[in-house]
């Protein structure tokens, strides 16, 4: 059933089932995994806070990004541009008041104390969680047509005029979607598709391609990324794009009505947008129910 079809049967204010169990389960497992992976990843990055392009790269080779310190001053350097980041990056105060010159501060890393080995333990465990959950979700969502029906843009949405309209609506913080909020709008679809089918696979593959054993098994794949240090750089960039997505995602959840949005991702129950004086009847619709 398409969003347009359901929209006609739905009345504003009604509570409907919005997200399937598989979607909800994956969302939270994935959220936890990405949260741990981002923070443990920063722990690992702290062991060598420099990024390079190509196959090799170490302290004597030119880095395109580095976080370092000059005495008490911490800085981030990208290319030739240096930004002082004292207090946040490269030089910051630890909980006990002493100064650390590690790149990322304790509150951004797992564990919150410096341990490359422990960061790696968290990272590789939750990498498996991320990958297995993604495979489960991807198979499930193609099989039950969630991707084709809810995430793929319609031909109408792909018209430049409508894309521009959606961009303007977002800029005005007006979030228009079909089905009283049960369907996704164009930018929403594109960002979810981009995260699920581009960013997450890319971050997983660039991570895998830092493995020397994997490189022996599939050297052609490392070549695709331009060598191990390039793979490491792309991995880091993907991680920051994911962090950016999460920040935007959270802002939009708050703007769209956090209670209703978060409830719909936990219990699946979603109150349709629009005005209604009716009390809350619970209507099970075919959309997104198990």
């Amino acid at each position, binding site marked *: 059933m398409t969003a347009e079809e359901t929209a006609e049967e739905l009345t504003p204010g009604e509570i409907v089932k919005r997200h399937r169990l598989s979607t909800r389960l994956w969302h939270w497992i994935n959220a936890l995994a990405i949260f741990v992976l981002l923070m443990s990843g920063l722990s690992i990055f702290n062991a060598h806070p420099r990024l390079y392009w190509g196959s090799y790269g*170490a302290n004597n080779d030119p880095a395109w990004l580095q976080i370092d310190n000059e005495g008490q001053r911490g800085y981030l350097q990208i290319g030739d541009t240096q930004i002082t980041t004292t207090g946040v990056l490269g030089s910051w105060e630890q909980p006990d008041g002493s100064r650390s010159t590690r790149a990322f501060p304790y509150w951004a890393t797992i564990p919150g104390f410096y341990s490359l080995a*422990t960061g790696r*333990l968290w990272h590789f465990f939750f990498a498996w969680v991320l990958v297995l959950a993604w495979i489960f979700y991807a198979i499930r969502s193609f099989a039950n047509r969630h991707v084709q029906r809810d995430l793929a843009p319609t031909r109408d949405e792909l018209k430049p005029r409508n894309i521009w309209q959606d961009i303007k609506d977002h800029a005005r913080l007006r979030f228009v979607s079909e089905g009283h909020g049960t369907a996704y709008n164009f930018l929403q679809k594109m960002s979810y598709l981009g995260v699920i089918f581009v960013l997450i696979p890319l971050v997983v593959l660039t991570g895998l391609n830092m493995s020397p054993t994997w490189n*022996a098994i599939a050297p052609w794949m490392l070549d695709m990324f331009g060598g191990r240090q390039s793979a490491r750089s792309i991995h880091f960039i993907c991680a920051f794009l994911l962090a950016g997505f999460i920040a935007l995602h959270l802002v939009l959840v708050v703007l769209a009505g956090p209670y209703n949005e978060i409830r719909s991702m936990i219990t699946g129950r979603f109150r349709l947008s629009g005005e209604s004086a009716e009390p809350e009847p619970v209507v099970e619709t075919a959309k997104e129910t198990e």
Partner: protein
Amino acid sequence: MSIIMNRRKLIAGLGGGLFVSGCDSWSRSDRVKAILASAEDLTMGVQRSIGGATALAREFTTADLSPEFRANGSRTADSADYQAMLANGFAGYRLRVDGLVDRPLSLSLAQLRHMPSRTQITRHDCVEGWSAIGQWTGATLGPLLDLARMRDSANYIVFHCFDTYGADNRPYYESIDLVDAFHPQTILAYDMNGGELPERHGAPIRARVERQLGYKHAKFVSRIEAVASLDDIYGGKGGYWEDVGDYAWYAGI
């Protein structure tokens, strides 16, 4: 709204703070670390089963060499014996091959140089994240173990080293299983980038285990021991970093 927002922030802050501090106490818990480390067995099992047992590491050309190969870990070994050998061009050096073997060996550098050898230009990946490309020449480990008539009861090869590391001067050591020991690229390197292996890179001998991270490539190797189990070797986890710092024994990722 602002009260709700503040409460939201408070809950988020408390939740986030509790989770992060929870992670810290979990990060110190041996039980939690054992659960997290179970992923290491999964990674090793999967990598080995899809070709990682036999695949060769990428080899590069001299045009790809790092301009400067970074030295890491011990730059030398402090013992008087080692320093005396170093001063003497390792004339008195003998590599011992013993443990579960029928014919223990004691080989001079000259003898080792006459063993079957291999030259390879490979990328060295440190667990910290950096990489360097270098050229290595050395005796292949497999034929050496065959010469020593390694027994069937052996499961691991332990590299004992001259150097010690850390504040408490623990001896450095590493270990690999037989899949890696008999891999054609696993060599005992005596030459690097066309010259003799420099002191800071582990003279006179360093192990090359090309499909694993740098800490597995033991430097300053003095003795090779074939063992059935790693339990009774030093801290029992198969290597210096494995013993002191929770690093994975399988460093294929």
